[in-house]
């Protein structure tokens, strides 16, 4: 593929570079285009003549005002935070414990149990949501916060299991024996020695789980009532019913959150790579 890469650029290399630039543009441009349009002074989804000539009057914060001052959006933000944080706490606690167990060399039935624990990530969300709707309505948990928190925790747990299992792979088990020989009990050994060392994996997993909950709309659509509307649910009706640039300003907020999450995860990855390299020496 890169045959001529080292020895100067042939026409093929240029074609590839141009193709890849276009492909990246296809990936990124649709996301970025939303940001300037969210400052549109007019209720349109396209650039007005004024915006293109950078006329300050063509830009405004009216859609941000509309979102930030609306009771519905505030309630949605509150719901997203409550459901997201509770589900993340639950998924991270249970997921970390399970991953520590799965990483033990003595773990029986590892493959089957891993498959079971990861299954919520694999099953299409529409099927999970349909099943949850049937089951949770039979135990009267639809239209409740509890129901949504439980289902989002189930959907987020696989991310924690995967990231913590990966972090455990770089963990030197002899450290636990060292801690034990110095008189630390198993709990103390876990919290003082193991947890700090695998914490990048735990935090990444928690961020993945939180991001998954923050983006989840199908389960909320099936199970949530008016009271439990989250940000994605609010955007969903924004897109379906009253398509207004207000959803673009909400979208911009979510893009900023996505960038922050991505940067945090990348930093954690770099840090844990450094750490596992360090523990080997």
């Amino acid at each position, binding site marked *: 593929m890169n045959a001529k890469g080292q*020895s100067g650029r042939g026409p093929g290399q240029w074609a590839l570079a141009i193709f890849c630039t276009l492909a990246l543009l296809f990936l990124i441009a649709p996301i970025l285009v939303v940001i300037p349009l969210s400052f549109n002074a007019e209720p349109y989804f*396209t650039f007005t003549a004024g915006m293109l000539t950078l006329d300050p009057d063509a830009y405004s914060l009216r859609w941000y005002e509309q979102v930030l001052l609306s009771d519905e959006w505030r309630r949605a933000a509150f719901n997203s935070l409550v459901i997201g944080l509770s589900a993340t706490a639950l998924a991270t606690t249970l997921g970390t414990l399970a991953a520590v167990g799965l990483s033990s060399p003595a*773990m029986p039935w590892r493959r089957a149990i891993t498959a*079971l624990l990861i299954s919520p990530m694999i*099953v*299409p969300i529409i*099927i999970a949501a349909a099943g949850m709707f049937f089951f949770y309505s039979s135990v009267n948990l639809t239209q409740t916060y509890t129901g949504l928190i439980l289902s989002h925790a189930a959907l987020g747990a696989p991310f924690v299991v995967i990231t913590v299992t990966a972090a455990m792979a770089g963990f030197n088990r002899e450290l636990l024996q060292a801690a034990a020989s110095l008189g630390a009990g198993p709990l103390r050994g876990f919290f003082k020695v193991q947890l700090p060392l695998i914490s990048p994996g735990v935090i990444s997993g928690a961020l993945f789980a939180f991001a998954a909950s923050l*983006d989840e709309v199908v389960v909320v659509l099936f199970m949530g009532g008016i009271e439990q509307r989250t940000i994605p649910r609010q*955007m969903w009706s924004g897109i379906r019913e009253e398509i207004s640039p207000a959803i673009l300003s909400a979208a911009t907020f979510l893009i900023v959150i996505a960038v922050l999450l*991505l940067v945090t995860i990348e930093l954690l990855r770099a840090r844990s790579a450094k750490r596992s390299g360090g523990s080997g020496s």
Partner: protein
Amino acid sequence: MAAGKASVSRPRTRVNALMLTLPLVAFIAVTFVAPLISMMARGVYDPTVADIMPETVAALQSWNRQGLPPEEVYAAAARELTLAREQRTIGRLATRLNRQAAGTRSVITRTGRALNRGAEPPWSESLPEIHEAWGEPGVWETLLLTGDRFTADYYLNAVDLQRTVDGDIVRQPETRRVYVDLFIRTIGVSLSVTLLCLAIGYPLAGFIAHAPPRRARLLLTLVLLPFWTSLLVRTTSWIVLLQQQGVINDILVWAGLVPDAERLTLVYNMTGTLVAMTHVLLPFMVLPLYSVMSGIPGVQMQAAASLGATWPRAFLRVYLPQSMPGVGAGCLLVFILAIGYYITPALVGGQSGQLISNLIAYHIQTSLNWGLGAALGTILFAAVVLLFVFYDRVLGLDRMKLGA
């Protein structure tokens, strides 16, 4: 005590490891597996008729289906329909029967109203007076057919089949055959999206894999950004870009490629579904390809070239075979994600871009035909599980990673 802990016997550590996973195993079993099982059960278990008209169904068992049932069946039906009307379960009953035989709804509701006003035995005479359908075997056969708590009807319906009163399985009438076509369309769309992702993702992943490390890291972050951005945001973006008064049409009109009066319809149809789904699923193609391709030494291609191979030949004989595991993983992953896709087609697909998952949602939320929704869901679920088992056999599920 500390020394004892360090030298625990193997059975103890086995149990300890298992105990650590137990809370999450129990949690997933209750919050996730039980719902899936309850969905599968919904597709085969429908007690509506058996619960609301138990005596009628029981009495019908002795009916030889020659002519009309005896008076005792009529009496049971009249009694139970009166009760159903009082308990307000008659609507559910009428809906269930109507699904089996169109037109039965009005028979049941009209009879319920008339019984409520008062009617006299003998019921085998007064019921046919209320609605002539009671004087034909048709309604009774429908009751007999739906009287079982366990039914294959929803699964049959999901593949455009139905059961006759004689127990034969026949195709649905032409106007009601929708689901097989929809499954075929879903597979077709998923294949198209997979091929589009491969066509864009293969060169892109190769380019990133053989770029200098710092640039590769940056390009990979650009691929990951959409992956992290809310699905709804990405879908909104495509509506903004593709709609008739949107950015792409504006550019085309401005460039003179399209007359203003004939702006292209790019969204709320199949085009919108294909474009938006390709965008959403492209990172899932690039990442596995990248991880395989970054392990292929670039010098191999130079070696092939120095031995006289032309570029296409070197690519086909040297590079492509080594990248095949990535191609397999990426294609399978994108295909699996595509066949279950719901949000994007629901928002940008319009009428023509709907997939099987949209029909599942429709039956659960709008038509309230939960049995059919569950049957369609179970079939889709089985397809996904089979594909994943295949993925696991060929590539190994445990090699699936998050991000780069």
